């Protein structure tokens, strides 16, 4: 049978974003793949050289739009490393709550998009219903449904609103019950199990060599989480365990990657509940914006020759910002902002995982790696 290249072009309902996956097929089997990115390359790194440190936060929200808070916090930690700012502890707790709620929302969006890839359309409306709950909480915190611009250099822009703790506890507890519904829906569905088990094996050593991190790597059995290995924020003060899967020797398949994200949602939900209990001065006290309890004074200029970087556990892996300060010549703008996107590294690897499987397995494999093209094409 002749081999031919098929382009799963930029507009495709299954590709979770705007990119082209060119596949070389021999009949129905995938022989080679070539991803083609750059359709939403916005030149954020160049734009950021003309913006303030606080203005760049709005760009970082829009890098990976499914999990906006994790990216803006990732940037803010790097800025605080550059400017050497100490963040008050209450602000760290508020940031943790925002980040973990966002992680739940991101995984719900993934699950809501993965179900239809496999063919299960009802889970999309279920997951998006839960995501609306999380987005309500995040809207109370940040002011908008999707791009919150929530952290500020040295703290957060606003404290927890009145009554937030009560609503958050109610909604997160309800969500913990609903996770069992999703698991029931998937684990009792033979079609889902056939389509995801035994498909898309990815080995741990290859993943580490390629630079894949996050849930994809933890599904492979490697217990690496930036929150515990290079601890930042107040993760070390909460009582939680990194969810890791136990895959087979052939590697992690799509089912493992699905399971790990469900476990991560559970762990994040428990972390939010615990953080609401442990937050200093209680979750019901309210400080005005600008209060030193929630934001510290920060310099607005970076001296020349300094640099700051920070690893962060994004919903999809390890994201990192590297900022170079430019001194007086640059004023309040950084000299160079460099963004490390986990998906930029994972997508070529995921494309290699597809070789040898059928064309119909491509949405299952690609979806299980959770691509988000916004962060890939910066």
């Amino acid at each position, binding site marked *: 049978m002749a081999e031919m290249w098929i382009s799963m*072009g*930029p*507009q*495709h*309902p299954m590709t979770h*974003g*705007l990119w082209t996956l060119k596949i070389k097929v021999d009949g129905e089997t995938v022989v080679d793949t070539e991803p083609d990115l*750059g*359709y*939403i*390359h*916005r*030149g*954020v790194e*160049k*734009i950021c050289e*003309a913006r303030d440190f606080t203005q760049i936060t*709005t*760009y970082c929200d*829009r890098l990976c*739009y*499914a999990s906006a808070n994790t990216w803006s916090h990732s940037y803010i930690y790097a800025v605080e490393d550059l400017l050497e700012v100490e963040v008050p502890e209450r602000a760290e707790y508020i940031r943790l709550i925002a980040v973990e709620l966002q992680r739940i929302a991101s995984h719900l*969006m993934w699950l*809501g*998009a993965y179900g239809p890839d496999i063919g299960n359309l009802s889970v*999309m*409306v*279920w997951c*998006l*219903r839960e*995501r*609306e709950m999380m987005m309500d909480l995040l809207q109370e915190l940040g002011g908008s*449904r*999707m*791009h919150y611009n929530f952290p500020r250099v040295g703290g957060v822009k606003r404290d927890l609103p009145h009554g937030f703790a009560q609503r958050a506890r109610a909604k997160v507890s309800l969500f913990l019950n609903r996770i069992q519904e999703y698991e029931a829906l998937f684990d009792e569905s033979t079609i889902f199990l056939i389509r995801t088990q035994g498909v898309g094996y990815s080995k741990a050593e290859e993943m580490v060599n390629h630079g894949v991190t996050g849930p994809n790597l933890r599904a492979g059995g490697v217990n690496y989480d930036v929150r515990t290995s290079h601890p930042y924020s107040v993760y070390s003060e909460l009582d939680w365990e990194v969810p890791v899967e136990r895959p087979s020797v052939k590697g992690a398949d799509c089912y493992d990657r699905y399971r790990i994200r469900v476990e991560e949602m559970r762990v994040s939900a428990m972390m939010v509940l615990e953080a609401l209990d442990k937050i200093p001065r209680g979750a019901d006290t309210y400080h005005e914006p600008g209060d030193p309890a929630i934001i510290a004074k920060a310099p607005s200029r970076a001296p020349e020759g300094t640099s700051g970087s920070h690893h962060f556990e994004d919903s999809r892996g390890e994201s990192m910002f590297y900022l170079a300060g430019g001194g007086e010549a640059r004023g309040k703008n950084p000299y160079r902002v460099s963004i490390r996107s986990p998906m930029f590294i994972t997508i070529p690897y995921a494309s290699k995982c597809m070789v040898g499987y059928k064309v119909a397995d491509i949405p299952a494999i690609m979806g299980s790696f959770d691509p988000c093209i*916004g962060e890939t*094409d910066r």
Partner: protein
Amino acid sequence: MDGDGQNYSVFNSRMLVDTVGDITDDALKASRIKDVIGVLVGRVFNWSQRKSLFPLHLGIKCCALEMAAAGASRFDAERFGVFFRSSPRQCDVLLVNGPISKKFADPIVRLWEQMPEPKWCIAMGECAISGGPYFQSYNILEGVDTVIPVDVYIPGCPPRPEALIDGFDKLRQKIIRIGASPDDGAPESKNPIIVGDD
């Protein structure tokens, strides 16, 4: 049958079809029946077009998640007849929900050309309207209306799903005004509508 497979018997000839069509057309025009049929059928077509707008399953950037939320359970867009289709050949509306980069300018024009008439374009979000926060970027076009004619602009970054549904409502009003196809109708029907402008 001759060499290239066309059946040239006189009853299938193209000339016969054209001649009969012209004669019938002149007769209908003379007796004004064509106008009456045009008005009635046009109204039915217009009603059905505006009640079942099929956008394309195109998600460029963040506004695509609000588009998905608009189709989900809280802000159900399907009760308005809006049903997303994957192929541009089956769509009425091109919902552009993100910035257009130089690399994507050609595919989006191609998608627009693949859509059959009548078709409309909705620019959703700041990036599609004017380039948004990336208007100074070296890679982003300043708005999708540099390459495609836009009918409705929905501002917001991202616009709430309620705003998107309102945008579809404005598009429906525009369809009522301009008739069955965008080339008919009064000259002012060519002006695009901006949601929130009243």
